[in-house]
């Protein structure tokens, strides 16, 4: 897939949308109006977007507790997502899931997941279904560096390999599993090295670089669609916020995030590259910036004004029939 201007603008818009969404949730969470646990994806946008730009509605993704970016990149509705995070009836899950359980099966979004390592087995199943139902679809499991050490993830790599499932396992290594370094918790140099043991390609990618993710993902998706089996991608990246909102992040160096924002930001890097290439103008990007801010602003206003679920909703949706 060659990236034309439309694709570049779309990629930029989605990355900016995720960033604005997360920065705004960060601010709104601090006011106390957003209930529960929220984990923000800011800083990692290039991965979700660089991957999902290759996918369409026949393809599935499974996500993590840090799932807003994956949801937006897979096409979930911004307003319905924001309303869900506020626990409102108009939310994507009717206010019954919240930040950690946003899902949209019509879009192939099999759910953010509150269980670290919960997604990869499900992605194997989605890949199996895609293969058997003959739609040539693929399934992508996003996993953090914490989830990369879970047995369920390692078992899934093995299963996907022996069954040659059309799966892509994307390890978003942001350096910290909660407050513990991936260097401490993982007995490997790179998580991608583990691919060798499962007889599949393993690639290390700069997760700040949209174009690097885009290239690697394109190859992995092509392989999967052609029936050549799964790929393991490790994207080295950083998160701008804490493990959860409210995390004081005392385990990080005091200026760590500021330095990252100044030097490694995926959106600024993308903008520099596309404008210097002359394909896209700074004005066009600025216009997207404004549009995204308005959209997120509107989604927050609407989410705040929306109704909470009716009492009767407590008892619905447990079973199809009972």
């Amino acid at each position, binding site marked *: 897939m060659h990236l034309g201007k439309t694709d570049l603008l779309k990629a930029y818009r989605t990355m900016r949308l995720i960033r604005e969404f997360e920065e705004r949730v960060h601010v709104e969470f601090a006011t106390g109006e957003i209930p529960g646990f929220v984990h923000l994806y800011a800083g990692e946008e290039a991965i979700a977007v660089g991957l999902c730009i290759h996918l369409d509605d026949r393809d599935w993704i499974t996500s993590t507790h840090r799932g807003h970016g994956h949801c937006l990149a897979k096409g979930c509705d911004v307003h319905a997502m924001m309303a869900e995070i506020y626990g409102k009836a108009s939310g994507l899950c009717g206010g019954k899931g919240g930040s950690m359980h946003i899902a949209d099966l019509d879009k192939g979004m*099999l759910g953010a997941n509150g269980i670290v390592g919960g997604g990869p087995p*499900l992605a194997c*199943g*989605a890949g199996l*279904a895609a293969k*058997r139902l003959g739609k040539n679809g693929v399934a992508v499991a996003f996993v953090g560096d914490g989830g990369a050490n879970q047995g*369920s993830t390692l078992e899934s790599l093995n299963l996907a390999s022996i069954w040659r499932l059309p799966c892509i396992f994307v390890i978003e290594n942001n350096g910290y599993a909660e407050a513990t370094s991936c260097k401490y918790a993982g007995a490997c140099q790179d998580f991608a090295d583990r691919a060798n043991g499962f007889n599949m390609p393993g690639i290390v990618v700069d997760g700040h670089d949209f174009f690097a993710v885009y290239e690697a993902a394109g190859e992995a998706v092509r392989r999967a669609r052609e029936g050549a089996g799964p790929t393991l991608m490790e994207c080295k990246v950083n998160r701008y916020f804490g493990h959860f909102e409210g995390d004081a992040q005392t385990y990080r160096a005091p200026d760590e995030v500021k330095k990252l924002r100044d030097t490694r930001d995926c959106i600024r890097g993308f903008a520099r590259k596309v404008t210097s290439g002359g394909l896209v103008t700074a004005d066009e990007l600025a216009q997207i910036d404004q549009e995204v801010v308005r959209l997120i602003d509107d989604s927050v206003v609407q989410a705040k004004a929306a109704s909470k679920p009716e009492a009767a909703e407590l008892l619905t*949706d*447990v079973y199809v029939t*009972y």
Partner: protein
Amino acid sequence: MERRITFRQAINEALTQEMERDKRVVIMGEDVVGGSGTDGAMDAWGGVLGVTKGLWGKFGDRIMDTPITESAFVGAAIGAATAGLRPVVELMFVDFMGVCFDQIFNQAAKFRYMFGGKAVTPVVVRTMFGAGFRAAAQHSQCLYPIFTHIPGLKCVVPSSPYDAKGLLIQSIRDDDPVMFFEHKLLYSMEGEVPEEPYTLQLGEANVMREGDDVTIVSLGRMVHTAAEAAAALSSEGIDCEVIDLRTTSPLDEDSILESVERTGRLVVVDEASPRCNIATDISAAVAQKRFACLKAPIQMVTPPHTPVPFSDALEDLYIPNASRIASAVRDVVRYKA
């Protein structure tokens, strides 16, 4: 007389007929084919106890051996169900839930609710349970109470070949995740089973024996032990009603309450460990809803609160038997306030 087949054959027939009817039905599990990747024959085992024998020959790659990684393949069955297939996955022994429970109770059971009613996860987890096989503490547990506890799961515990076939076909056609518990000592039991496909509704108990003196509620293999006790008691002039729950979730509470209204006496027989099991659940419901009907305290016949022992001398003591059930029934009949 109708055709007689075993419990094992009844399950095999239900699987065969549903796979013929619906191409989305696939089977996966450890050695459900047996022989994959070996130099020997395929379909070498057809499941560790031969329940799925012959399906590979009929359906090829729609039945798949898995590595011994329950978390991955049970999870894959769940993911595949949400993505359009109707998998029947075999968890060889329910005791192995310890290495894959997350996928069942945090994923499959909760998708529909967490996702606002949009997910449909038509997966069946077939699993072997129960004591009496001298299989010791890690291969003999009941554990259906743990799954019954989880909203979003249905739990089926058939007691006969007829029920096994009808309940399994219904479970495969059901749109919710179903845990299907097969007692390992029932596989060779024979019974009358129609050849054509049929379904039994989940949540409808079966009154195996009618009686007016005492209600005995049970499930799984214990139903037969309860029936044995009831037959012995009838010669003493005690007339027992024996109710086979068939499913613990949904639970046919109405049938139990209606029976207790008539008999005023309840004995619940459960092979599961005694704390927070089906016996305590039913006893609580009856005490709460039909207190005024009760002529005697409710009796629960269960194993002791111990792991399942290995030695036959101990395991035979562990499992509730007809004599213990009869004794509990006599206690409730003779009770004087």
